[in-house]
């Protein structure tokens, strides 16, 4: 095993997952559609008044992003565990941590990143001013990275269990609460036109901590789940 070999293996994992995703576009599009539909329900179900929508926009955006990113988690490891791909990872000689980090990165590329890019559209419908978008986008980028990482731990832990769905949310949501709080706070500040560096630093701290520790925990969980 060598460092370049590791990088090549990780890149291969990313490519493979992206290729698989293009073959099953519905699976990729579902969480994004969910995100759009949930946020757009609020102008219809709550009030079309932009001033009122703007007040709840931070919470709506982040809760919808959290739930949407969780929708895509179920399939993160389960299919690969069933068809033996994860077994291959374990015996490949490459560190499982890195391979799972690559898988998580792909999950983010396919859900977190598109969610972030949809924010201007969805935010506009909720009355978010154009000037706030820069701040909201940076908060969403950092926040969705953390959500993918936390979700990877949850998805790994539920591999061994009979029923994934509800349990996955029970495990993942409490760990995701800080992301939700800091993300919504950053969005609130951005909409109000204030400096949002404070919550952005906190989102960054969560993301860095997640990148450091979550792949280790996910690897331990996947090993247990595969036995």
């Amino acid at each position, binding site marked *: 095993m060598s460092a370049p070999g590791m990088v090549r293996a990780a890149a291969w994992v990313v490519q493979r997952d992206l290729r698989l995703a293009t073959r099953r576009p519905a699976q990729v599009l579902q969480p994004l559609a969910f995100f759009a539909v949930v946020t757009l329900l609020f102008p219809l179900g709550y009030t079309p008044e932009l001033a009122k929508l703007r007040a709840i926009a931070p919470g709506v955006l982040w809760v919808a992003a959290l739930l949407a990113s969780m929708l895509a988690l179920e399939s993160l490891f389960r299919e690969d565990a069933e068809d033996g791909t994860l077994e291959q990872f374990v015996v490949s000689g490459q560190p499982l941590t890195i391979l799972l980090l690559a898988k998580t990165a792909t999950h983010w590329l396919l859900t977190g990143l598109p969610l972030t890019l949809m924010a201007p559209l969805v935010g506009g419908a909720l009355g978010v001013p154009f000037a706030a978008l820069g701040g909201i986008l940076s908060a969403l980028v950092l926040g969705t990275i953390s959500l993918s990482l936390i979700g990877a731990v949850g998805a790994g*832990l539920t591999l061994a269990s*009979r029923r994934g769905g509800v*349990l996955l949310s029970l495990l993942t949501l*409490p*760990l995701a609460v800080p992301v939700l709080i800091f993300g919504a706070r950053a969005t609130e500040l951005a909409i109000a036109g204030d400096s949002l560096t404070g919550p952005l630093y906190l989102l960054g701290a969560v993301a860095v901590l997640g990148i450091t520790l979550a792949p280790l925990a996910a690897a*331990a969980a996947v090993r247990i789940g595969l036995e």
Partner: protein
Amino acid sequence: MDWTWFHKFGSPPHVYRLAGVLTPWFAWPAALLILGALYGGLVLAPPDYQQGDGFRIIYVHAPSAWLAVMIYAVMATAAGVGLIWRMKVAHAVAASCAGVGAWFTVVSLLTGMLWGKPMWGTYWVWDPRLTAQLILLFLYLGFMGLRASIDDLSRADRASAVLALVGVVNLPIIRYSVEWWNSIHQAPSVMKMDRPSMPFDMLAPLLAMLLGFTLYFGAVLLIRLRAEILRRERNASWIREELT
């Protein structure tokens, strides 16, 4: 260094017997301390200059909050030991902790609400300290839910151990939230660097309660642990000697 003592703790029959012997040594002092502290806290301690008799809720709130956090620390430590040294008894300890921990987390939240309403003016604020304690409850529930959903005991042990370790990040947040943020929750009165901010006749019942609750948890843990070991070792030969 002699590691036999450590290996002894990996032996289920030894731990089963030891737990049986130790239980009364935890249970009786706990009962005496809690009863004494109850009298001291409700009768002997003077009312507070600001909160009057209402401050006496501290004698149930602080010990249960302490237990909620301490039990999680014990659980995560045991889970880590079980994971690293593949020690079945340690996993049994972790499994025995979760239920008690969840109970006392609920108690700390409820007693806190009952204290907050008359003093702060609200049952609940979304304050860092309170929110972190609520997350602690969800972590306990997640731990138990994960265990319950995995049929194979060994996998359930190790998967839940990973979760317990991941959840440890919540503990420093609970401990230091009142210092990091402008929390409405008071700073610690007893567990602080310099001396406690209480006169002796208020402090003594509180310390007795804290120690009493800790010993009480020790007794409950030992009983639960014995049940857990019995169920895990159902086919071992030592059980025959033990039960006949």
